[in-house]
């Protein structure tokens, strides 16, 4: 039986084609998490207020709770599941893990996707640029400081530098 209430579409997610039939009013967030079981992308409000659901569409961070899935057809969708390169973590993931920038880890996927796009735009972001760039992602655990430091660390590693985190970042003053 053909269900007229559903859309059958193929998405390009993390470089792979994935077909899916879904109710047409579903958001991209719902389709990713519930229809495709890509639960790495989180939600904190489903109203565009927290940034937990951030994914990249053609390299640009987008709140997947505010985007209809039908609008993502034919676009390059990237989620946290597509960040690591095989078994190797992305430098941002490594830096977040090293500095404890993920406490509960719930805001982390959204922050990683936002930060990745930020570094792609600006490989050497200032602290102010990082603050501005991540301002739409709420985190209740970390106080953001370890996140800023992790983004700086990852950006430096991605520039081919070999930075060591500051002593006071880890051990305090």
């Amino acid at each position: 039986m053909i269900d007229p209430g559903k859309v059958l579409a193929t998405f390009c997610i993390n470089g792979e084609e994935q077909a899916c039939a879904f109710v047409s009013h579903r958001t991209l967030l719902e389709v990713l998490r519930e229809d495709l079981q890509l639960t790495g992308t989180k939600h904190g409000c489903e109203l565009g207020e927290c940034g937990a659901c951030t994914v990249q569409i053609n390299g640009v961070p987008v709140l997947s709770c505010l985007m209809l899935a039908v609008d993502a057809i034919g676009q390059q969708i990237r989620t946290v599941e597509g960040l690591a390169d095989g078994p190797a973590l992305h430098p941002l993931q490594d830096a977040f893990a090293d500095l404890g920038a993920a406490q509960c880890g719930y805001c982390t996927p959204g922050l990683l996707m936002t930060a990745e796009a930020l570094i792609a735009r600006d490989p050497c972001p200032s602290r102010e640029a990082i603050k501005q760039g991540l301002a739409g992602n709420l985190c209740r655990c970390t106080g953001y400081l370890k996140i800023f430091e992790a983004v700086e660390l990852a950006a430096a590693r991605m520039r081919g530098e070999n930075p060591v985190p500051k002593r006071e970042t880890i051990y305090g003053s």
Partner: protein
Amino acid sequence: MVLDDPRLADAAAGQASAKWRHDVKKEDLRVIGTAIRKVDARSKVSGLTRFADDLSLPRMIYMKLLRSTQAHARIKRVDVSKAKAVPGVKGILTGEDLPTPFGILPVSQDEHALCPDKVRFVGDPVVAIAALTEDAAWDACRLVEVDYEPLHTIGSIKEAVEHEEPRIHDYGVRGNIHRLENLEFGDLAAGFAASDHIREDTFFFEGNTHLPMEQHASLAHFDKDGKLTIWSSTQTPHYLHKALARVLHPLPAHHIRVIACPNGGGFGGKSDPFNHEICAAKMSMLTGRPVKISLTREEVFFCHRGRHPVLMHARIGVSKTGRIKALDFHSLLDGGAYGSYGTASTFYTGALQTVTYAVENYHFRGARLFTNKAPCGPKRGHGTVQPRFALEVQLDKIACDLKLDPAQMRIDNLAPRDSLTANFLQIGSMGLMQCINKVVDGSGWKTRRGLQERTADGRIRGLGIACSSYLSGAGLPIYWNGMPHSGVQLKLDRSGLVTVFCGSTDIGQGSDSVLTWIIAEVLGIDPLGMRVVTSDTDLTPVDLGSYSSRVTVMTGNAAMQAAERAREILAKGASEQLQVPVARLTFADARVFDSENPDKGMSFADAVIAAESRFGTIGTVGSYTPPKSAAKFRGGGVGPSPSYSYSATVVEVEVDPETGIYRVPKVWMAHDIGRALNAAVAMGQIEGSVYMGLGEAMMEEMAYRDRSHKGHRIFVHKIPSLLEYKSPSTMEMPEVVTYVVEDPDKNGPFGAKEVGQGPLLPIMPAVANAIFDAVGVRVDEVPITPEKVFAALVQKRAGKVGRYGPDELPPVNFGDSLKIKTPWQGGDGTAWNEPKRDKKAAR
């Protein structure tokens, strides 16, 4: 096992052997104190951590709750017939289906999973509906007809005091008073008589909420074998297990399995058993299908259990040099609609004042009121945050009155280490002096305070100081019994894998990793190579839960004991095989070897094989029970802890003297945590506390919309969304200079105390004190919004007292106090005027 039961060898549960004493030197530790990754770090940064809402099961259906639209009303009629007819609906529950009340504390079992006859706040659940899709469940909810008969709404502390009728609950002290406490330690009159200076101040701390990024979710599955499993975002699987067993009776407790998923933040907000969890379980039993519920953000605001709004009055007497002679402290708590942890919260508003500064004579009166708001409960710093604000601001005012340096005055008042306080709390290690010195030096306090420097944009700078202390877990369990608070089991595999089983729940604070660090240190293995199985009531020994900062000390000690027992068994096996005496064996780098000849040894895996060949399958257990408290009076159960953490902060503000708008550019925070088990993780906890404290200080509040509509009062949460409930973003987060102070405590694993609740507390008063330093006005109310600063500035300009805050407390009759002699009066921890208690009845 052929060995003597090692449990007999170290019968004093939780006491570490000499090798792992609290004061072991840093250089002798390989894992503890380093900054290794958390055991679950890779999953967390990969989006692979499975939170409750990430789970699904075949044939799963979705549940929604219809919630009350009335603040206080009797339910006259519930008609679900139209909802039943919605295609896809599989099950409907109403109050009749879940008649047994529950609640976190044995003394306040006052909640129903679905309100049977009365609703007590906008958001109270009335009907649960499960359907094939979430949309269908919502649609069906909208078709339920509920007739309410409105009752008078109680909207504030004052209203609750003034209106004995209608009662929100039919239990409690009287009227709408839930709890009344009145405790007097020492001789207040004598203390005030001996004082050179006496001050009285009134404060208000508005409620605020945890706002975890993860919305609560649960998945329940009643299987065909008659067993129930529930996965849930809970900090307290053990207590959820208890509540389920109670409400779902006659389903036997041992047919119920609670698995707490990693929490996407908790902060105390997921510590109660919740109605949605119980409904999901019951719905699964009704429909025979797995049932999922994920709350909307608005519903998370209704779950609440956050900071109590508290009105406080403090009368304090000091000597000329600022030494505290007497403190008379009053608190009135707005509890919201249910009991929750409220009894404990009430006591906590009076418990810890004495743990930072020596208070010679102390009188505490506290009352908790019921109101028609979302229920309040424990939020980071549980009940101690509001009085800490009052005390630290009042001390600042005293210092100003007496022209003393507020930092020095605090140092002069410090409670001594290894002492008993006026209310019989046992202080152990106490690094507050070091904390104060760190932030005073770091911030340039001595030279920069009181300068009222202008910034380039015309703002005025100010510095404020404040201190605090916090518990490392509650000394008494919620259900009084003689069993341990925390248990750990270890399984040692022939591959060398060590698996740890423990009931504790990782809410982001890193408790899973704490287990691995301690065990890895004792067994000389790589913590990242271990397997952790936690928070599963079927598989793991009980841990009471991730609340009151108890996990590091309590599960830590239990883990230490289990690891030491495993080490003992392995050492015996290895000793026989290597022909090296046990005392000479070292466990390090995943090897067991002769410390005098390191080449002579074996791998850790071979040591397991040697021991298993000799003694059979290897498994050990450890458990922890806190030391007995010296406080024996009624109410003395709240406050005792194995140890107390300390914090001191200096906050810098820049205030616009025209508008009252201010910003916080920099914070210096020092936290005495006994010992940092992991440096980076401890830092993260401290920074997170500073952040959350700033949110409370500057903007966060549970505001209610109070309107009248056609003669009917509308009383509803004003801003139940992440956008409108303001919390600090990256843009508001200041620079933080963190000092980790380590004053090892003998009750902690490797000397560790709590980390991460304590440093929240001094932020709010330090902000208030800094604003005074900058522009000379007092805001005696939290949050300290620019409007309030502005209002105080206007007063000041008009030549009046530059202050914003409440004037008085509504009068409450507290009755006679329990009178307790202080330790220095020769008191024994009992109240001399307490009527004899029937011990059995008390339980």
